[in-house]
């Protein structure tokens, strides 16, 4: 298996692997924890579609273009198979 992110330069590749080696221990846990934080943030952004009033929905609307990429993965993780928003048809 070749890691697509690996640099080609031998020294850079060695350093990249060394960094990966030291990170590996907590990597899964870190990814999960950061994802949980992002999930909470997205939940706050999209709380209205779940019936929770969002007093700052006008402002969070502006964030939609930035978080649209993650939206599909998020709603699937939240147990919603299809996009719950009419105007965001990701699936």
């Amino acid at each position, binding site marked *: 298996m070749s890691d697509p992110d690996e640099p080609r330069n031998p020294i850079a590749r060695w*350093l990249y*692997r060394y960094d990966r080696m030291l990170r*590996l221990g*907590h990597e899964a846990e*870190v990814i999960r924890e950061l994802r949980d934080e992002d999930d909470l943030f997205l939940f706050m952004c999209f709380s209205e579609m779940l019936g929770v009033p969002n007093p700052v929905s006008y402002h969070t609307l502006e964030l939609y273009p930035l978080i649209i990429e993650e939206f599909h993965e998020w709603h699937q993780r939240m147990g919603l198979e299809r996009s719950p928003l009419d105007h965001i048809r990701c699936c």
Partner: protein
Amino acid sequence: MNAVWLAFIAGLIYIVGWRYYSKFLAERIYRLDPNFITPANRYNDGVDFVPTNKWVLWGHHFTSVAGAAPIVGPAIAMYWGWLPAMLWVVLGTVFAAGVHDFGALVLSARHKGQSIGTLANRLVGRRAKLLFLFIILILVLMVNAVFAWVIANLFISNPSAVLSVFIQIPLAIWIGYTVLRKKGNMLIPSLVALAVMYGAAVAASYIPALQIDLVRWMGGEEASGVLFGLDATGSAFLIWIMILLAYVFVASTLPVWKLLQPRDYINAQQLVVGLLLLYGGLLVTMPSVTAPAFNAQADTSWFPLLFITIACGAISGFHGLVASGTSSKQLDKETDARTIGYLGAVGEGTLALVTILAVATFFASAGDFHDAYSSFAAAGAGGVGNFVGGAGQLISGLGIPEQVGQTIVAIIIVSFAATTLDSAVRLLRYIIGELGVEYGAPKLSQRYVATSIAVFLTGLLVLLPDGGQGVGSGGFLLWPLFGTSNQLLAGITLMLVSLWLYRQGRSPLPTLIPMVFLLTMTVWAMIQQVVFNWSGLGEADTQWLLFILGAIILGFALWILLEAVRLFRNPEELKRLAEREAREAE
């Protein structure tokens, strides 16, 4: 005799073991298949199951399993002389640890990357899972108690190391906040952090004002009645252990990326630094071995205690947890398991080996050795200190002043022990939570409740047993129990691998022989300790806590032996289990 020769002979045996024995295991016993689709490739989710480069995974596996334990155990076991300790470390690594780690990795990879606990449940039955959970609970509690004492002891004997250890905490938090969220590279910041820590160590070695010396602050060793009627050393132990427990509570409840991940990242590099310094110093100074090969004046027999005094560094059940818990989920090709499992064990063996050599060359004469290792209790209390002294002497060959070298080695050991302490408290929290769910007490699975119980139990275990050395000396008394529970875990893993090989119609002897040896030694040593040393039957007074814990572990050991015998003698049940497994695999 020159210590370099000993290192050379041991290295040669490791190489032969790796080159030929692990190849034999890979081809004839575990029969690794390069075309087998590993769980990492089958279930690749980018989080838990990630195919990883062989050497990256080996490095991670090695840094995960090598910590303070392969230093503490051999440093205590030097009490019987360097030869028994070295033989057990070298031969144990080649014929037991390598087989065990390698086997745990293959077994887990062949069972969807499941952990040893889950596999015990599936291969042996529900009884084994319960047994397994309790052994881990006891093992983790022991680890906490022993390492809390080790850290407090090093802080008191090396006050110049305290500042660096404390500086590491804000540095790690800074790395966590600035680098990790941005997914940046941690290498440069962590090297900067290391430089700052070692710079502080050099400064503290020469400037007494930077040394956090509680004993001196409380009036020196002669001062009495400082806290609760304790002398200054006892009070210092009490204060350090309280500070450590408070720190562990905070560290293990924080999100992992804020402190634990960046701190472990720095500490893993300290392992590399430590090994380079020690072996480099050994090659440059070429010291003579001054400790006796056998300690004829030992008041406690080496047989069978040696085999539970040195667990990590010879064979350790904890490696099975790492191999089956994380490494097996990241195995890219099944054939990589040979490098990661076997060579990972060899890596830890080299750390235990250099510990033995550092202590064996530390003393000016055999008389000094006998003074330092006058009794088994003295070996427990002073073993790590002797290693720090010996390591400082080795490092001085590289032009680093001995005092600075000793401080750096103390920092490395404290860092390893603190890392283990954090992880162990987190693990304890999960186990308490799981037991809470199992027995209908969901409150126990709450983060702060479970951590409070974990920390409270650890404190109880450190402060309650009287090791004869004042407050907090329960830690080194527990070392034989830690070794025992660790070896039991290894015994369970080897039993599972043996059963799997037996069911596959292959020879289970390479795993069965170490298992029988290990469990026999463990049971033998425990009977000796529980019946003659702690029960009050012999000359010694009854030590209730050790007696109860020891009796529980002894019961578990006998239970495992009976389970193994029952399964090997009952082909019908084995067949049923194999059929169930085949159905699940479909």
